[in-house]
């Protein structure tokens, strides 16, 4: 063994380089985000908990068909309305149930993509991800009523990314527009 090699083995400069790096990090700014106090705002397109609007929904079942694992269950019946003036009969579909079995959902957003209404009647861009429950089956089975009324659902209704890649329009403005049209979105 050459003497130089011997001493390079004896004096571990390679180890000192690592020690210098970790030692330097000892004084650097930390990356931790203290969760309950500090929060990271999810991105605009973040796919989280479902939002659903029965007034906008046209009962086309496309979301249920698009779902790869069939967790959207829709039951409906047809009602016949008679116009009191003209006597014309008008068929109207009424949604009895719109259930999403969220415990199995994989948040792929294909249902939202399939939804033909504008704005979407079902959307995942609610920026909500805190869905921990103590119970597995009932607590994560969302009916129409629960989907529409869970805490925070109206705070961000449907930041659906437009196809042209721009930012979604202001969600609150969109909500106003929808209610002004008396739920007449379709």
């Amino acid at each position, binding site marked *: 063994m050459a003497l130089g090699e011997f001493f390079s083995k004896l004096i571990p400069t390679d180890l000192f380089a690592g020690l210098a790096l970790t030692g330097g990090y*000892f004084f650097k700014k930390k990356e931790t985000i203290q969760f309950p106090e500090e929060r990271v705002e999810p991105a605009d397109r973040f796919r989280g908990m479902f939002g659903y609007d029965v007034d906008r929904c046209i009962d086309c079942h496309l979301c249920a068909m698009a779902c790869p694992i069939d967790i959207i269950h829709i039951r409906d019946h047809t009602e016949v309305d008679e116009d009191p003036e003209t006597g014309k009969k008008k068929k109207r579909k009424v949604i009895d149930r719109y259930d999403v079995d969220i415990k199995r959902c994989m948040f792929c957003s294909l249902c939202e993509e399939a939804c033909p209404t504008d704005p979407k009647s079902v959307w995942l861009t609610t920026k909500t991800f805190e869905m921990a429950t103590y119970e597995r089956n009932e607590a994560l089975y969302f009916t129409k009523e629960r989907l529409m009324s869970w805490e925070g659902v109206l705070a961000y209704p449907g930041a659906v990314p437009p196809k042209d890649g721009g930012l979604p329009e202001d969600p609150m403005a969109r909500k106003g527009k929808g209610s002004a049209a008396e739920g007449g979105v379709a």
Partner: protein
Amino acid sequence: MDQPLIQFIVIPLVKIVVILAVLLLIVAYLTFAERKILAYMQVRLGPNRVGPKGWLQPIADAFKLLVKEDLVPAKAEKFVFMLAPGLIIIPALLVWSVIPFAPDTTLFGLLKQPIPPYLTDINIGLLFLLGVSGVGVYGVILGGWSSNNKFSLMGGLRSAAQMVSYEVPMGFAVVSVILMAGSLSLVRIVQAQQEAHLWFFVPGILALAIYFCCGVAETNRNPFDLPEAESELVAGFHTEYSGMKFALFFLAEYANMLVIGSVVALLFFGGWLRPFPSWGWLGFLDIIPPFFWFAGKVAVVIFIYMWFRGTFPRYRFDQLMHIGWKWLLPLSLANVVIVALGVLLLKG
């Protein structure tokens, strides 16, 4: 009360209680310190939820371990399984009886005569220390064996081989200090450094390096933490331990770290002496009590331990033995010869 009763029973008992209490508290906070230091090196914050800035974390941990269910595997060798944590913690605490951490003191004038704050100073202190700390390996082996778990057994075996083979160069490293000081008493070694106006790490730099390496291996710390290599042996010899018995293993590891740190401070860095004890103009440093000089030196050693853990990968078992027998042992032998020659030439 008569004098001997006080001198031989009361004072030592008080000392024992105080030393044990302080030691256990320090050990508990060492775990906290380690977690914090590692976290800071890893761009995170570490425990900071229990109490102000996380300062009560070790208390919470200790409480958690106390109230945890104490599991004994059904097929374990029950008696040995119970015995092993005791076997490892007792030597780890026992060595503190000979470690002097400050010179004789009057406790700020409370006492008429200065008494030694440490428990005792025996003239074979260093030998006692090496011998007693070597017993700890039995706890590791027996704990690994009695768990009736193959991973634990392998951890125990690795540990046995590692500890036994690293005792040898460690002993030789210490011998060079003994040659320089001419005594086995730890107090005497510190005094010798004062008399020589020189800390022994200057002539004994090689001995220091060897002792430090061996110390890391003896206490199963990274990069020599094979017996408990988590990613290989799933915590090694204490896989099956839980609750307070696990806590004892844990305490012993940290107490041993403190021992190694103390010995490094005593043998190579002048124990409780301030830097350059012979330079009068540095006298203002004497404001800091000697105990804190000692504690500071130990803290630096422990910090380096943790720094190592935060930086290095782990050696493999055979490579570890390779280093022990093929590098450290010859080096330490050479070191003894060199130091002996030096002592012979200088002291006549």
